[in-house]
């Protein structure tokens, strides 16, 4: 029997790429001293799919569906970001009703994403009852999305220049009923999060991030807002119909895990409120405007607020049927730095919850990064080079 010293005599607990705590592959190494974490590192890239490159080979319409598949949870918001960028390049604007319906889908998606997160984060903390109940109630909003679009995950509601699906009064009534139920349940979960002693013991004062840290590390979305960093694209740079139907920004002061729970639950309740306002004053208009097949040459950026934070698209067109370049920066990518920084000094038992606290989405932030290593020209790699590189890397 032998105990080889690991690294520089350090005890490293590896989490991933396959680990029960992770729903997607990623690799984390936590250096622990007993139960205390003294160092952390992250390695991503297990599910790189080459979507950005793939986008250059597809037409604008085809890309719409490709972008939706970047993320299974926030599929609508990716398509919205792309579509808005393309509309800006083409110089058209979606009709008011279409923009309102985009907001409806986006907010329903936010509700389902935040409820999913609530369950996952509770499960990471060993609170399976909350996990099961929040996922049961999430089915309500999934059913709504299915009723509207026929799909539970990839709704494909967007078109370049508008939306596919219309809302009718019966649908709105059904959704209103569902929202009433959800609001009641969310109030209950907020109560649990705020008052359950064991839960508070696992969340309050854990992973505390100050406003300065959030700014420095470039945190976005609910993670940043829980640290009193008031930034929400929906409020600061309204898109879709957020100018007509504004949302209130939810901000918390504490910056710990508990604040992240509270911010997300309150945000979900705010989504419910704004949905009701939209249903009461849904503008009447066409659903789609005509958009040319060839998008004029130019560059643009498009920003939207995904459930996890600011989602950023850069789109360049050379005036053809296909985009020149599509660059996606997903919110999870901005938040990774906070995990690595906050982990140090906490207990190993807190790691899954700190990890889940940013609501990570692995697949959407995997990029191909080239590191020049014994290679002449870093720009041009032949297929044989890449193959060799792969073989050497995993040897």
């Amino acid at each position, binding site marked *: *029997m032998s105990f080889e010293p690991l690294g520089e005599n350090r005890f490293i607990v590896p989490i991933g790429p396959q680990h029960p705590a992770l729903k997607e592959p990623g690799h984390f190494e936590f250096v622990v001293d007993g*139960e205390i974490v003294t160092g952390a590192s992250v390695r991503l890239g297990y599910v790189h799919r080459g979507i950005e490159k793939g986008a250059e080979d597809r037409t604008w319409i085809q890309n719409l569906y490709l972008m939706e598949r970047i993320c299974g949870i926030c599929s609508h918001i990716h398509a919205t970001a792309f579509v808005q960028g393309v509309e800006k390049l083409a110089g058209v604007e979606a009709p008011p009703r279409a923009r309102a319906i985009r907001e409806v889908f986006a907010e329903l998606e936010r509700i389902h994403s935040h409820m999913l997160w609530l369950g996952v984060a509770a499960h990471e903390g*060993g609170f*399976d*009852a909350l*996990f*099961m109940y929040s996922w049961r109630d999430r089915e309500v909003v999934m059913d709504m999305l299915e009723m509207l679009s026929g799909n539970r995950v990839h709704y494909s509601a967007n078109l370049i220049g508008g939306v596919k699906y219309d809302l009718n009064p019966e649908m709105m009534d059904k959704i209103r009923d569902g929202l009433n139920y959800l609001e009641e349940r969310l109030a209950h979960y907020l109560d649990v999060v705020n008052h359950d002693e064991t839960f508070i013991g*696992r969340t309050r004062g854990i992973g505390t991030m100050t406003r300065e840290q959030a700014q420095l590390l470039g945190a976005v979305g609910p993670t940043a807002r829980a640290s009193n960093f008031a930034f929400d694209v929906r409020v600061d740079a309204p898109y879709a119909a957020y100018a007509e139907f504004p949302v209130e920004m939810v901000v918390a002061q504490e910056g710990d895990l508990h604040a992240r729970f509270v911010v997300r639950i309150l945000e979900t309740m705010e989504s419910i409120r704004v949905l009701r306002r939209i249903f009461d004053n849904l503008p009447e208009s066409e659903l789609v405007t005509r958009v040319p097949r060839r998008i004029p040459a130019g560059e643009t950026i498009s920003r939207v607020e995904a459930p996890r934070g600011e989602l950023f698209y850069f789109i360049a067109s050379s005036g053809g049927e296909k985009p020149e370049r599509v660059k996606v920066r997903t919110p999870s990518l901005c938040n990774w730095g906070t995990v690595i920084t906050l982990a140090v000094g906490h207990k190993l*038992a807190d790691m*899954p919850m700190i990890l889940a606290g940013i609501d990570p989405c692995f697949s959407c932030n995997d990029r191909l990064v080239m590191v020049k290593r014994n290679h002449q020209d870093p720009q041009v790699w032949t297929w044989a080079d890449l193959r060799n590189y792969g073989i050497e890397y995993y040897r």
Partner: protein
Amino acid sequence: MNLAIHPLIVLLFFPGGLFLLASGLVFQWADRKLVARFQNRVGPRFFQPLADVLKLLAKEEIIPQGAHRGLFIALPIIALAAALTAALYVPMFGVQPFFSFQGDLIVTIYLLSALTISLGLAGANSVDRFSLVGATRTLTQLFSYEAPFLLAMIGPALAAQTWQISKINAFVGETTWFIVAQPIGFLVALVGLMGKLELPPFDAPEAETEIVAGALTEYSGRGFALFRLSKDIELVIGLTLVAAFYLGGIANPLEFLLKTGGLLLVMALLQTAFARLRIDQTVGMWWRVGALLGLVQILAILAGIYIRQWWL
């Protein structure tokens, strides 16, 4: 209830041996089903625990490199043997314990701890990072709940003035239920049992989201099946002990079913209601609250006995 059965039958079939294993599986199923229903899930079908065990027994057992082979194979057997032996001193299923002597209470508790220690050793022997952390947590937890649990078990023994489980059981049957006379002891015993069994919220030693399966991460096949079986039997023994001591004793199979079933229901509720405690929170809770409460209970009992003697 006292039965005259051949000792071999006692050891192999009833109430030891096969019947005990079967009841362990039934209790495991009941526990899983109850927790599932409390969590609004469907839960497993009744034969699921048996199917799990059969499947595991049929599987190849993989021994990790660097682990001590003999120890790796022996530890699950020791754990199961400890659990099965402990059952002989406890009035299982309302039948008189088949071996009984002055001090068997301590032996039973010792045997149940031996089970946990072999679990910890198994983790330390596996030379896996998750197992090592799990083993450390298992043993840390052992040192935190063991003292309060022991105090809670000693309470009824002091009141009954005997260290023999069967005599305590008989004594309790004749007086008011100890859950009324010693409510603190009952609470400590029940929660201590949950710590012993590593049930939520005391499941830090096998917290799947951190350390996969804790000490048992490297175990597969037969070893894993035996460890799980011994845990199931520990559950039955623990429930029987607490029911015998605090719920007015167990005199017949019907009482056994009702009382242990009721306890299991409460335990399932407690498992559902809380988030997992960190290991430092567990230790802090037991030593700051559990042990103190247990001591207060013991002092109260001693004072009660003293006053009664002085009065008479």
